[in-house]
């Protein structure tokens, strides 16, 4: 089927099979491999992207369903500088080891910080509850997000 959508601000026209999910479309057709594919059934959260400004699981959405939509991936958020401070905080706090979950963690974290400028740790945990990390034990990730929230509020971390 023919689809036409915006990906990171650029118009993309493609011909895809109905069974192709959005994650595989982004990775294999567009070579945007920052979106990771873990469980392929909506549990691990590694494939999180933004569709029309809201985070979704790209393994649970067909590419044909993204027709007419605006999709943003980690490459878009990273290149625009939107999450540069969050990325720096992840580095500083050792909030990643293998890095597999990191693009989606950043997606989910930025989604929270856009909705709520000053979330407490419990709220951060809740918003990230759909994203698995098998390395860090999560504490450092929560530290990094809390630090970024405070910095954005103009407070000391």
């Amino acid at each position, binding site marked *: 089927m023919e689809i036409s959508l915006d990906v990171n601000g650029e118009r993309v026209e493609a011909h895809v099979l*109905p*069974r192709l*999910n959005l994650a595989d479309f982004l990775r294999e057709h567009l070579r945007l491999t920052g979106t990771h594919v873990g469980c392929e059934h909506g549990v691990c959260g590694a494939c999180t992207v933004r569709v029309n400004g809201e985070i*979704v699981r790209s*393994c*649970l*959405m067909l590419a*044909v*369903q993204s027709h007419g939509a605006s999709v943003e991936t980690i490459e878009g958020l990273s290149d625009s500088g939107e999450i540069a401070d969050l990325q720096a905080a992840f580095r500083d706090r050792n909030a990643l080891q293998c890095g597999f979950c990191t693009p989606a963690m950043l997606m989910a974290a930025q989604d929270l910080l856009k909705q709520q400028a000053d979330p407490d740790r419990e709220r951060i945990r809740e918003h990230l509850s*759909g994203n698995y990390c098998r390395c860090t034990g999560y504490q450092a990730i929560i530290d990094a997000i809390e630090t970024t929230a405070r910095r954005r509020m103009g407070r000391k971390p």
Partner: protein
Amino acid sequence: MKASAFSYARATSVVNALELLAAHGDKAKVLSGGQSLMPAMNLRLISPELIVDIGEIAELRGIGVRGDVLRIGALTRHVDLLRSPEIAAHAPLLKEAVAHIAHPAIRNRGTLGGSLAHADPASELPACMVALNATIVVSGQAGERRIVAEDFFTGIYETALSAQELLIAVELPVAQKNSKHFFQEFARRHGDYAIAGLAAQAIVQRDVFTDLRMTFFAVGDRPVLAKAARKLVNVALTPAVLSDASTALGDELDPQEDHQASASMRRHLAKVLLARCASALLGRPDLNAGGPV
């Protein structure tokens, strides 16, 4: 895994969707938000020949109040329920329940109609529909059918909906002034499948329940509207009355055992929820002292 191959049709209207379903019957599957269907397809638990995508049908959207009826379109997403001022005002139970459904990225896609048609016995919204005494509105070639929520859910992933019908909306009586609600579930982790849960809607007058619809979920093959709750209605509630209701609830439930919990653990947790609910709704901490009675 990846889903096996299928044909895809983007329905342009309810009429168009019904034509497709009439032509293809149970070889077709309706795609709404896809948050249950897509995992099942990716795991190859199901392999439909045709996917009928209803995601673009505008007439299935929207939340509106007419008189004392709240109508919610089938394509209303979980996040829409969470943010809607109409839901907060007229069906606050739903707002509270939705926060327990999976995670933000799932709630941004998953829909009310999808959740009800899927009818997972551990899911929150079917139980809320029974507690709120909702009417499920379905459309077919022969016209519209209106089904009381209690009759709609017929088993594990089974409903009164036929393969040729489409769930189009639900209608709920708006919450009355003296109505109260309670929602709680036990899960291993926030957003996980419930081990046992309770959605309840009540009317309280002078510290007495005059109506109490307690609907338990994840403790049977469908949401269970507890008959035991009737023992708590129109009586001055004492620990003895509550104990009697608790015993009756244990006898009434027939929970399944799975990797998360044994049947007796589920029965125990349901009793804990019964006591917590009665205690919370009447503002009587004494009724919940020492856990289940």
